[in-house]
């Protein structure tokens, strides 16, 4: 289960605040995954006291709303990423960035598909730069893109370009994964699917033996 409480002293009306919170949730908590199980209890409650003395925000399109939205996004993304980082049994955080999609929503969906893949997660734990599993998970996300436009980069190592696997340095790519795992750092998977302006991110973690151990012992 994930729970979140967000507070602010900005002054904002109810309709705008509720829309802003859902937008931020979609850009953060709804973009994380640890094990693919949706809890019965997931909740985010966000409270705005209005005590800062700021001018009241009554339009989502106002400059002030955009400023507050960016703060809200930042706080929720910071917290969401820390949940993925702390995933049960995880040795590293996985950040999947998708660019070139037709929209933010499409990019986000592809990113989460890759972050959710048990095979990608297991490959990261196995320190295996497995571009095929990443490509497959992007492909079944339910978003159309041309395979010939698919590019995949792991950290700084380009694994696939324009749909063609490259002769990358396997030791370097594997070492990147190993180092991240040793210090519980972040593994970056960058995927480009075309020339669209849609950018989306999702966060997950690797899948280790400890995940099964923890949940085999956490009984109902």
């Amino acid at each position, binding site marked *: 289960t994930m729970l979140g409480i967000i507070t602010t002293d900005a002054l904002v009306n109810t309709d705008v605040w509720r829309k802003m919170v859902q937008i931020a949730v979609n850009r953060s908590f709804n973009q994380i995954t640890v094990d693919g199980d949706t809890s019965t209890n997931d909740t*985010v409650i966000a409270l705005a006291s209005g005590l800062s003395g700021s001018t009241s925000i009554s339009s989502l399109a106002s400059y002030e709303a955009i400023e507050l939205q960016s703060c809200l996004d930042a706080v*929720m993304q910071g917290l969401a990423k820390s949940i993925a980082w702390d995933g049960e049994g995880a040795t590293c955080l996985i950040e999947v960035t998708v660019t070139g999609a037709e929209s933010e929503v499409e990019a986000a969906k592809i990113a989460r598909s890759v972050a959710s893949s048990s095979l990608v997660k297991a490959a990261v734990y196995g320190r295996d730069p497995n571009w095929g599993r990443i490509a497959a998970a992007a492909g079944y996300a339910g978003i159309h893109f041309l395979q010939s436009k698919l590019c995949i980069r792991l950290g700084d190592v380009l694994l696939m370009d324009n749909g063609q696997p490259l002769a990358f340095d396997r030791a370097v790519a594997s070492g990147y994964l190993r180092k991240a795992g040793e210090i519980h750092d972040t593994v970056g998977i960058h995927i480009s699917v075309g020339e669209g302006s849609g950018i989306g991110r999702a966060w997950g973690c690797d899948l280790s033996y400890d995940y099964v151990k923890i949940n085999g012992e956490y009984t109902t």
Partner: protein
Amino acid sequence: ASSTLNEASNCIPVAPIFLPEGPWKEIPGGVTAAKGFKAAGIYGGLRATGEKPDLALVTCDVDAIAAGAFTTNVVAAAPVIYCRHALDNSETARAVLINAGQANAATGDAGYQDALECVDTLAMLLNLKPKEVLIESTGVIGQRIRKEALLNSLPRLVNNLSSSAEGAGSAAVAITTTDLVSKSVAVESQVGGTKIRVGGMAKGSGMIHPNMA
């Protein structure tokens, strides 16, 4: 109270928070960084093992504009059903009570009554209307809240409320379950030329694939 909160906030390490870059500045305080908020986290005897804090409270001095996003899982826990209903009927809230240990999910009518009783008791202690109190639960699915332990702990929880960073830290610890670290962050930025703060805390480690609406 200060000592209790300090001990509570040091129970487990603090998570590294990977804030995106932007015009904001990270500041201490988590959920209590913004003006008007207090928080506390204490051990109330709800957890099956250990004495890590398991009961948290966040309050606002004024009627706070309230928003919620909840699991879209059809099998929703009692607190989720309660909060959805509360926010459908009220634009504001004053307090959020969170327990760790039992999720109060798949507990049927009895579990919902437990949630209502916890809300009513806390509302009475805070001199609020029940509809101004929201509730969240996390822990083992299928188990009802250890209600007596929770209700008996509420006066102490209220007495520990603090606008300090320790208050926020202790609350962030109290909502954890299998988490190895507590998650809390706050930022300060400008909105329309006025300084504002946004803070937050979260928990989560397993059973994580949110799809909230």
